[in-house]
């Protein structure tokens, strides 16, 4: 399989896994953004824009801080609010942000998605 096809296949597998975890207790939804397309699945569709902007800004801030403090390639970015948290990371050339309630074990979630 070519590298491009493998990457496409990995993303399809990830999308299937995301579909399987979205019904779990505490999971609010996810945004998976590639260069030409995006998959968005959020329980509250009125928050799509707010969440998309927050996700994009946290990726930028994470990259900036990584260069400032020389922590090298960013594996994950975790953002915690009052009752919600966002786990973001780059998977192949896609940017994934998973939105969840604060009590969700994001480390376990990463393992379940094979992202750990």
């Amino acid at each position, binding site marked *: 399989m070519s590298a491009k096809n493998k990457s496409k296949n990995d993303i399809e597998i990830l999308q299937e896994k995301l579909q399987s975890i979205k019904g779990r207790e505490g999971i609010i939804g996810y945004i998976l953004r590639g260069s030409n397309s995006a998959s968005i699945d959020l329980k509250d569709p009125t*928050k799509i824009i*707010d*969440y998309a*902007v*927050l996700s994009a*800004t*946290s990726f*930028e*801030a*994470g990259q*900036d*801080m*990584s260069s*400032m*403090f*020389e*922590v*090298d*390639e*960013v*594996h*994950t*970015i*975790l*953002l*915690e*609010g*009052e*009752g*919600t*948290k*966002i786990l973001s990371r780059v998977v192949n050339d896609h940017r994934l942000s998973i*939105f969840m309630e604060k009590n969700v074990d994001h480390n376990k979630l990463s393992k379940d998605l094979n992202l750990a």
Partner: protein
Amino acid sequence: MNEDPYAVALKNALTEIKNICPDVSRSFIFAKDGTIVAGDSETDEKTMEKMIQSFQSVAEKADTIGSLKAFYVNGKKGKVIISNVNDMYLALVASKNVDTTYLHSVTHVIIPTVLKLLETITPTPIQSAPSKQLVVDTLSGFFIGDSVQIDTELLEEWAKLLNQKSVNQVDIEAFGGKATQCKVKEINEPKLKGKGMIRIPEKVCKTLEVKKGELVKVKPA
């Protein structure tokens, strides 16, 4: 950076954190308005300012998840950890193997203890300014943004009291009990200057449940 006793005590607390957790390579504390309160000698002020700017760009957009409590960047060679402690943020850079649970326990005991101690031994909190009662004027239109407007003189007076370059955010409390925090700018209309007014965007007026002509209590955030 502040060099008052408050900042010196916090700087010492940061040094202690480094002694307890050698995995921590850099550390500094900043206020919600972005003012650097205390920092280690390894990190120059310009780097701190750049990091705070990046963090605030996220914080500004984090209303949808409640206020921003923590931001973690896990990198291949290390971690950047920013967490809310009392009314401030503590920024730490640590090695990739740092025990974050232990670090969290240490920092969230040491810093609040130092702050509490300082409040006890300092007759008046260093970072406070009296609130003012101002008359509400509403701002309307598409491009007004979220900032309120206050007289330049009052902003300068507060900045001087707080030993800051400027005041960028204020806490507004309505007499009905509703309160909010907003960015603040100077009143730009000459005929409205010097009248003890606060110009508030309509959206914020709704949040505070106040109308034009009513009084609100305002102080630097």
